[in-house]
């Protein structure tokens, strides 16, 4: 047994991981979610804003992290839409622009009463990362003279009175890396005191905790936090709870439990092999 495990072909481990994720997906296993403190903080940051507030949504991620971040991005969109907040979309990653398009598709299909230019607007992607953030904290038109449809900002009802992002009531950043939440904290939230919440990948999430609560009002770390946020929204807005498209993160928690259990099993077995081999080697 020990020798078999020591020489185990790694493809068996690959297969076990594949099955650990595939079977819960096929059986549609979903578990109840308990809203954690962090998810509640993010939920409250958006919920407590007066209806119709200005919210800047920066999507700084790409298809590689779509599986983790798109559910929380869509949840942000639905929450802001149901609160009637004015949503200003932008992207600091080149492949973030199509992610914004997905959120706009959600608005157009689920909230058809919302009007482009009055309730939501999209800005093009701009290169430069922190330079873009620095610029728009002082002069929005310097970076975005027009929206993504080529209409000058002065001709759009919801942007004509916006000088820079200091006129925003909240910044929502969905981030997969650099540029991302760290740059928003460094160049917008800290120097100008702009209230910022973040949804970020599991890799990034632990690094954001020192910024809470003075520099970041809350962080959704990884898919689990996205599922908790969805649960918080469902509790507050039953109409969203009935929408199967709004439960994507919750659905992905089924495979998480099984796969995490597999990971712990693998660590335990790996260490068992190590200790037994060492003992037999010493004996």
């Amino acid at each position, binding site marked *: 047994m020990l020798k078999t495990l020591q020489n185990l072909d790694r493809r068996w481990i690959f297969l076990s991981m594949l099955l650990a994720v595939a079977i819960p997906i096929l059986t549609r296993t979903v578990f109840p979610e308990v809203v954690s*403190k962090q998810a509640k903080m993010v939920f409250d940051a958006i919920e407590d804003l007066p209806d119709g507030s200005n919210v800047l949504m920066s999507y700084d991620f*790409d298809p590689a992290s779509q599986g983790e971040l798109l559910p929380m991005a869509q949840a942000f969109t639905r929450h802001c839409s149901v609160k009637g907040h004015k949503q200003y979309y932008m992207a600091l990653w080149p492949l973030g622009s199509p992610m914004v*398009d997905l959120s706009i598709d959600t608005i157009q299909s689920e909230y058809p009463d919302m009007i482009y230019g009055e309730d939501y607007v999209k800005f093009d992607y701009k*290169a430069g990362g922190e330079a873009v953030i620095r610029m728009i904290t002082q002069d929005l038109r310097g970076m975005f003279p027009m929206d993504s449809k080529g209409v000058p900002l002065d001709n759009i009802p919801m942007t004509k009175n916006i000088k820079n992002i200091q006129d925003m009531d909240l910044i929502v950043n969905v981030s997969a890396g650099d540029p991302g939440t760290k740059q928003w904290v460094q160049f917008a939230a800290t120097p100008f005191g702009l209230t910022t919440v973040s949804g970020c990948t599991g890799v990034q999430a632990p690094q954001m905790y020192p910024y809470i609560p003075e520099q970041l009002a809350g962080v959704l770390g990884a898919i689990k936090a996205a599922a908790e946020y969805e649960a918080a929204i469902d509790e507050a807005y039953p109409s969203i709870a009935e929408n199967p498209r709004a439960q994507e993160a919750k659905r992905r928690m089924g495979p998480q439990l099984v796969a995490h259990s597999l990971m712990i099993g693998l660590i335990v077995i790996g260490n068992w092999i190590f200790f037994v081999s060492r003992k037999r080697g010493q004996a």
Partner: protein
Amino acid sequence: MKRTVPLIIAIVAGFVLLIANFIPFAESWGLTAQEWFNILAVGAMVLGGGNLVKLHLMKVSSKRKGWGYSVVTIACFFGTLFFGLLKIGVHPNPLTPDYAWSGYYLENGSTLWWIYEHMVVPLTSMMFAMLAFYVATAAFRAFRAKNTEATLLLVTAGVVLLGRTYAGVWLFEGWLPESMQWLRFDNLTVWIMDIPNTAGTRAITIGIALGVVATSLRILLGVDRSYLGQD
């Protein structure tokens, strides 16, 4: 000249930004520098694309092993550029339908959109999804509790792995007394993130900040000239 002028450019550019941050009079200089930086970033993208083509063309011309795949890379690169730059399949902007080129280059249904949706998305996302498998083999083969520190790491990882799923609640349901609920893995995970993780990350963050300040000062004062390369 080859090294002096770029050195002066780097120092001046950096100090313009610093001065613009503190002196309102110089704010417009900083904004101009930032705009140029953003435009130059696109130049860097073009350079990246050019370098990619150059390397793969060299591989094809010298017929090195795997040159056929370089042909695929170059074909995909130029194909994407062609369909994207020429806005193939893109309709005009409905606000200005008489301007044929006014449409959004990534319009739903256009050729570039098709490439993005059916090639870029599945390929890039599956590439990164493969990491799940490698993390599993790493867990089995490499993560060993050889000493106190490694044991601490693995125990914390185990608590967080279970705590961030329903198992963190379910494992303790029905038998854990109310006064001991803090031991439930989900509550323990929250505590781990709030206290030890915040402490460790804060120390790392402060250390990195000091390092970045030191490195930036070295560049702005002209001490570090490694970016100038060799003559």
